[in-house]
């Protein structure tokens, strides 16, 4: 059987020569993120903003009418309301801003919408998040992302040299920041699931980076007479096949969640699809490229672990 080979054996691309182009690309997407955040901000979901969300399904399967629903709900004078199709033609997501007054007003508004749409729609989901909880979740989200970045940085610092740790963390921030940028630019709802997607992306991206760094460390020891430039390139090339295959299997799974996992998960999957692609890119072009600016010792300082089996040392 002829097997699929995505990457030929013994590739020898000069990845680092593309460093400038890659930095330029990173600069563009980072700037785009920054500008988008300034201009459009994030489309915070009720998890962070507080407010009311209802998922309705039309009982009349033939002619669900978004305009009619809009008119019905506008009679409530509920302030800012957004109504959109959700997954299916018969399903709608109704978001209503936080109401004036205390929690009782919020609860009362849910009841009002329910009774008003009762005739034509079934309520599939109703959510209400108070502003206090929203602020807390926001803080917790920032805290979680920072905690993840910090613990990853410390781990890599211990297992590798500090230079690796800095390169890895810059690559990671690059990924997290541009994923947030994607949500801002496409104005996708930024909610709890998005934080989960971002952290998983971070996990994937660092996984990729560590695999390459592992090889860099090994090769630094093995090819003491070669230049850093050669060693870095060689390490990327040697791990390239694995990088691509793992990206493909992960993307396969993600695309399947995107297409078959239902409307609730599709944004989540989209964030991770972007995360896997950008994570792979940043491992090669950001993390390793940054290493070139450090003069990493090839001597004993590099953690000398039992990577080379006994029998090889005899050779």
């Amino acid at each position, binding site marked *: 059987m002829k097997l699929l*080979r995505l990457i030929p054996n013994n590739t020898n691309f000069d990845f680092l020569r593309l460093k400038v182009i890659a930095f330029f690309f990173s600069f563009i997407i980072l700037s785009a993120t920054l500008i988008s955040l300034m201009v459009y901000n994030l489309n915070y979901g009720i998890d962070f903003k507080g407010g009311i969300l209802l998922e309705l399904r039309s009982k009349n399967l033939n002619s669900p009418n978004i305009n009619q629903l809009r008119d019905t709900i506008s009679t409530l004078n509920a302030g800012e309301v957004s109504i959109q199709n959700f997954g299916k033609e018969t399903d709608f997501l109704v978001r209503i801003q936080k109401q004036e007054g205390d929690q009782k007003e919020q609860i009362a508004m849910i009841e009002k919408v329910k009774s008003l749409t009762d005739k034509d729609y079934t309520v599939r989901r109703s959510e209400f998040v108070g502003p206090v909880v929203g602020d807390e979740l926001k803080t917790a989200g920032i805290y979680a992302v920072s905690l993840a970045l910090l613990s990853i940085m410390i781990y890599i610092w211990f297992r590798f040299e500090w230079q690796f740790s800095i390169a890895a963390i810059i690559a990671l921030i690059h990924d997290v920041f541009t994923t947030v940028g994607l949500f801002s630019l496409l104005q996708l709802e930024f909610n709890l699931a998005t934080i989960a997607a971002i952290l998983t992306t971070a996990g994937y991206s660092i996984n990729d980076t560590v695999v390459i760094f592992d090889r860099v460390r090994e090769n630094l020891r093995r090819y003491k007479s070669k230049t850093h430039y050669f060693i870095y390139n060689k390490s990327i090339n040697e791990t390239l096949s694995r990088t691509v295959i793992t990206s493909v299997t992960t993307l396969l799974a993600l695309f399947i969640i995107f297409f078959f996992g239902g409307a609730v998960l599709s944004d989540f999957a989209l964030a991770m699809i972007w995360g896997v692609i950008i994570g792979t890119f940043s491992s090669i072009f950001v993390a390793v490229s940054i290493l070139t600016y450090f003069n990493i010792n090839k001597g004993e300082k590099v953690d000398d672990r039992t990577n080379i089996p006994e029998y090889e040392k005899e050779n």
Partner: protein
Amino acid sequence: MKSLSNIRLILIIMTVIIGIVYATPNFFNTSKQDQSLNFLPGKKINLGLDLKGGSYLLLKADMDVVFAEKLESLLSDIRSSLRKSKIGYKKLSIQNDIISFQKRKNYSNEKIKSILLSLDKNLIVENKLNSFLIKFSEQNKKNITKTTMAQAIEIVRRRIDETGTNEPSIQRQGVDRIIVQLPGLDDPSRIKKLLGKTAKLTFQLAHTSILPEDLDKDSKSPPGFIKLQEDKNPDRFYMINKRVMVSGEMLKDASPTFDRNNSPSVSFQLSPLGGKKFGRVTGKNIGRAFAIVLDGKVVSAPVIQTQIFSTGQITGSFTVQETNDLALVLRSGALPAPMIILEERSVGPGLGSDSILAGKIASIFGLIAVMIFMLITYGMFGIFANIALVCNIIFIIALLSLIQATLTLPGIAGIVLTMGMAVDANVLIFERIKEEFNSGRNTLDAIEAGFQRAISTIIDANLTTLFAALALFSFGSGPIKGFSVTLMIGIATSMFTAIVITKYIVFLYSKKKDINSVFLKD
């Protein structure tokens, strides 16, 4: 080769069998009553509310109200202690959560302080010249919160139990919050209504000469009296004696019924002590209006016709549902603090089962896609990786069932994602073997070296991913926590399957066959 010992094989097979045993119940659609799978030790995975449908409520006890009440009762304790010790005082009052008063004569400040502290040693007492300031310390507040929350949870549980909701879960969260989870209930409006009332019931006498007809919203109350609104008619007021004659704690039972005019009402039964008190009060005050006050509003104020002892009726303009609810909250006791709903999430059964279906489809398609890809990329080794992958999924399901973790929709996404990422460990190993082989090693050496070198990479890479999952767990509320748990389990099982199971199969195979033709060479 050492690693090919029989013990290792037996251990692997046993692990897989245990995994299968614990995972099996999840593949059958059995109801609770069905006994046919009871011979298996495991239980099904706990489905989250987003999958099985239900309501989640986050409640906060309004502690400020409780502190104010406690301060009020501290005030009257101080008053009676000072009187008992015959210490003259003036201007005893509460302002901004602080009780203050001034002593009249030259009593010893130290003595007054010790009297105040004898009420509660944790109080903060400040003394300047003749004036005293008393407030609650953090320790006081902590103690009050602790007892209040313990009571509140108990009352919330009782009220929810009375509605007959299946398997509700009621937990304290943080300092002053309660999480209520109600599986299978997609419209929690009744529960919210029941929890919205503190249900503090008191019986108090009404003023004999100031009648509702004489009162409007601007009327002032004479000392010892308080003007209260009527429950159903906010424009009607009663002048009520502040003294509580009988209170809700003395109720033994309450049930919905109908009064003489056949309108819905609630009948109650008092405890022996309460009955005695009630009899004394009603005996002495025949002909006076006796107000039934619920949560600071007058339900009704019937005129006492005869002496009543332990049973009575609460009438008012009720609907049948209202008398049902009122009887229920009276039976369960008053909440020690008003409950504020901070967050509510309800999922209907339709969305839940759609999500499960979508999750199943995504899982199956994901599994097939990844397996096909591994097969066409690695051939025979791909089959090994796929065996490891299937074992991996069995282990994930078994572990989720074993620890009774809650599987949520994002959690299913986590499993599908793990399928994609789980093969990574295998890919690392296979690629490494390939490299070692291409650099001139013989087959068995290449395999040995490949595994040995890949493992440290696998551990480094997975541990860092684990940190991200741990951060997610610490952040976690509900569905997100579920996702991080599946992710962590996935990381652990994928390392195990790659390092132990794949390795064993590969070694077994390479001993029997010449694997050069399989995938190492093109």
